[in-house]
């Protein structure tokens, strides 16, 4: 069974080591914070000047001066720090974040990422995406394997405008975990009950498939939240 959006976030959270400094993009990436194992200290960075962002503020307890880059009224964990945008992007572009988890419109076999713009008559707006894609030590993508229309999001070459070239190291989808290794995209893990053939069929580029592909260790649910789609 493919993973739910929360399932993808759960799977990613397992891979963040203790002491990680992580920027989470909007969408599925935002969910990752919920699933961090309690024995690990992981600091969430927010572009607008937070290191150590906590969960959303309880209703009625919002501090009007404290939002994250997503615009949510959040809290701070003990040990959090606050700073201006210049230092925040020193952290990002200077290679200080250990990980960034980003959404994607498309990812290419070589790790090119497109996640900021759908072509056409729209207002363009990039935010911090390009800096994060270029700057984080490891860029991981969290995405559904295909679009709502069933089109592959993992492709030979991106047709959408690029965010950055060759920046993605890993792709976590509802079906699989993939690793970018030079020119190869390697199938690392399968979602429970998903076959290699299903993944290949929904992928728009060739994959390198090892003889044995492990199944992800993702339970059916966690704290009442379904992680596998029914």
């Amino acid at each position, binding site marked *: 069974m493919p993973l739910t959006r929360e399932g993808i976030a759960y799977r990613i959270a397992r891979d963040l080591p203790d002491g990680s400094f992580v920027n989470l993009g909007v969408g599925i990436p935002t969910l990752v914070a919920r699933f961090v194992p309690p024995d690990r200290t992981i600091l969430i960075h927010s572009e607008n000047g937070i290191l150590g962002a906590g969960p959303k503020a309880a209703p009625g307890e919002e501090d009007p001066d404290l939002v994250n880059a997503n615009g949510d009224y959040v809290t701070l964990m003990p040990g959090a720090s606050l700073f201006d945008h210049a230092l925040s992007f020193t952290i990002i572009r200077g290679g200080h974040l250990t990980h960034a988890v980003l959404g994607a419109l498309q990812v290419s076999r070589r790790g090119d990422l497109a996640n900021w713009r759908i072509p056409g008559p*729209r207002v363009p707006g990039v*935010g911090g995406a390009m800096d994060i894609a270029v700057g984080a030590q490891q860029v991981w993508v969290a995405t559904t394997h295909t679009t709502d229309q069933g089109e592959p999001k993992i492709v030979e070459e991106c047709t959408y405008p690029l965010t950055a070239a060759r920046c993605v190291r890993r792709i976590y989808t509802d079906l699989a975990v993939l690793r970018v290794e030079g020119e190869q995209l390697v199938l690392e893990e399968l979602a429970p009950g998903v076959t290699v053939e299903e993944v290949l069929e929904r992928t728009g580029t060739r994959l390198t498939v090892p003889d044995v592909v492990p199944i992800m260790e993702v339970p059916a649910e966690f704290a009442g939240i379904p992680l596998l789609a029914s």
Partner: protein
Amino acid sequence: MDRVVATCDEAVADIPNGASIMIGGFGPPGIPVNLVQALRRRRLRDLVLIYCGGGTEQDGIGGLIADGAVRKLITSYPTHPGASAVRERYLRGEIELEVLPQGTFVERIRAAGAGLGGFYTPTGVGTELAEGKEVRIINGRAYLFELPLRADYALIKAYRADRWGNLTYRRTMRNFNPIMATAANIVIAEVDELVPVGGLSPEEIETPCIFVDRVVVVPREEIRRVALESR
């Protein structure tokens, strides 16, 4: 050396048509909402705004754009759902947009404030935002050349000020404000509270008074109301 002016209207009274104006904030924290509303009452034309978002009706920046006061917006993320005014005007060809990666946006402003002639950033290489920009290979990596970005005015928001214009910020209110304070000819700060000179510890002052020309105090209650409304 008293930088305090009585009202927001007075603080923005000399801004002319065609001025370039930085506005701090990453919304809503750090947006000088009351200065923006005063600016809007000026009914100016042909402004160039340097603001990271797209503006909403509540923060006043969307209102400025809806009024047709803005010729050009230099920004990073004007795409949020509340930014209807910029969306409509852009699609009708009534406003010019210059979109920058957020790190490039703030670094260009910092470069202006720091007297630098420009810098090279790896951000944006190989993307459509690199079009027309010089690419240089430095130590084997490709970088884009970016110029400094100054303005005639900066409207910023801080937490506490003294009469000299020393400023502190709280929570995520800093964002672009301390940087914009370095890069405009006239810097106008809207603050929650005024304290006596010497009432801020030298270590906590984030924007030294050398950068600030005018201070307007808008009591906290009013700020909180506007912030909560704009969600």
